[in-house]
């Protein structure tokens, strides 16, 4: 049984007039037949399948539909069409710092966030010290959350989210947080989780990270699926070339051409890879 099976999934957003016009205005516009709703397809016909231990890198420029796809996988959104099946507990690390209550203490926020993530009280009781210690917030437990620095906030969020042993982990640009020393620690923790046989999805604009961590790549562009493949190096090369030339490949031949172009470019300028 696959851990994640995403079958021909499309996700539509509704945009247009309705936002913040209010009920009175809505009724008037309806009466005047002047009410318009626009559709926007964030994802179209996306199909992929992940087995246990797979690490999928989702690449694509801004507005490609990456985050929307992740939201569908966590169950926050439902696909407009297609089927999406997940098997196992999901830990999603999306935009870590948000959703905390500024007026509550660090301790209270830790419990609230844990509850939101679906932990049990017993589990949190046993892990609380570990969480605080890992986030290096031992002396700040009774501070109000708004008094923390933004680095501290994301450290806490990271620590709470990473202490479980999920079957599926979803990372949206959050591989490492905080300052130098914590960055290393969180990176190590992340590797430990990834090595434990978890199935992962990673959205990253740092292609070297995708190359290093992922064994499969999903390339999205404006909601359309360009590729789902396990030839990570080839497609990452092609993608990096695409980022510079903005020419979208249409078939296998063009992918290889793009990748070859990138390798040529890299040979001419050895610093290129580091600059990303």
């Amino acid at each position, binding site marked *: 049984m696959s851990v994640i099976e995403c079958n021909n999934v499309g996700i539509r957003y509704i945009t247009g007039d309705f936002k913040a016009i209010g*009920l009175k205005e809505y009724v008037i516009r309806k009466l005047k037949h002047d009410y318009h709703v626009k559709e926007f397809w964030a994802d179209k016909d996306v199909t992929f399948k992940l087995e246990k231990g797979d690490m999928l890198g989702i690449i694509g420029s801004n507005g490609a539909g990456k985050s929307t796809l992740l939201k569908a996988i966590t*169950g926050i959104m439902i696909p407009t069409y297609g089927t999406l099946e997940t098997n196992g507990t999901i830990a999603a690390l999306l935009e870590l710092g948000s*959703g905390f209550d500024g007026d509550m203490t660090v301790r209270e926020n830790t*419990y*609230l966030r844990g*509850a*939101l993530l*679906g932990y049990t*009280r017993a589990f949190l009781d046993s892990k609380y010290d570990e969480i605080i210690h890992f986030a290096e917030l031992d002396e700040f437990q009774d501070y109000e959350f708004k008094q923390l620095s933004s680095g501290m906030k994301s450290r806490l969020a990271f620590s709470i989210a990473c202490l479980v042993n999920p079957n599926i982990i979803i990372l949206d640009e959050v591989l490492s947080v905080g300052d130098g020393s914590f960055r290393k620690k969180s990176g190590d923790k992340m590797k430990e989780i990834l090595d434990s046989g978890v199935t992962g999805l990673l959205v990253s604009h740092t292609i070297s990270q995708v190359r290093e961590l992922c064994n499969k790549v999903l390339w999205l562009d404006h909601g359309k699926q360009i590729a789902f493949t396990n030839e990570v190096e080839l497609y990452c090369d092609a993608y990096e070339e695409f980022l510079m030339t903005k020419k979208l490949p249409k078939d296998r031949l063009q992918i290889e051409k793009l990748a070859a172009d990138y390798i040529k470019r890299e040979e001419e300028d050895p610093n290129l890879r580091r600059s990303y």
Partner: protein
Amino acid sequence: MKQIVEKCKKYQFLFEELVKRDFKEKYKRSILGMGWSILSPLLTLLVMKLIFTKFFGKDMPHYTTYLFSGNLVLAYYKESTKNGMSSLVNNAKIFTKINVPKYMFLLSKNVSALVNFGLTLVVYFLFCALDGIHFGFRMLLLIYPIVGLLMMNIGIGLILSALFVFFRDIRYLYEVFLTLITYVSAVFYSVDKFSKTGQRMFLFNPVYVFIKYFRCIVIDGKIPSLEYHALCAFYALIFLIIGGFVYKKLNHQFLYYL
């Protein structure tokens, strides 16, 4: 059924934490804390008693209790639905990032309103005693309208919170509506002066129906008819069902609007 129990167990911890948060948010910011939630209905009562006794209370026995019954139910209804309305929007940051059942936010708000109501209820009984009301087993029947009110408030909260996501001006329209409800709920006047049909019209107002139940038990010492019980149940269920339906239908559309 088994599924529901399991779900409850799963979300019990979340529910407790949310209730705690709402309490802290509510009471931390005022020096008087819980005292205020008792003091504020008492002030309303005091003003009403001072003003309206002259106009309406002259030939009405237990006018204080009459006023308090109306205020008690109305204040609970107002607080519960008003807080319920903003429960989704205020927590948008959370449920657009984490997959949690959104109705939890509404339920926890309803719990804090219910606790507030409970506190006021204690004071209410105190005043009843001072007003010379006889206590008896019939008072236990008050649980019936309280459960009914709770169900209705949750239902209306579901409807309002969903609407509030889509139309932000609902807040002001609802304020207007609440003012109207205050005047047609016979809080400080008696409906006896109206014709028979006029009195019946009042029964279209669910808040009045629950207020009348309270007065019937407490002041008149009578148990309302079976039909009257059915009417209470009808209002409780109809709003809860409509609310559940609206919520279910719009549940996955909220994200587009936040």
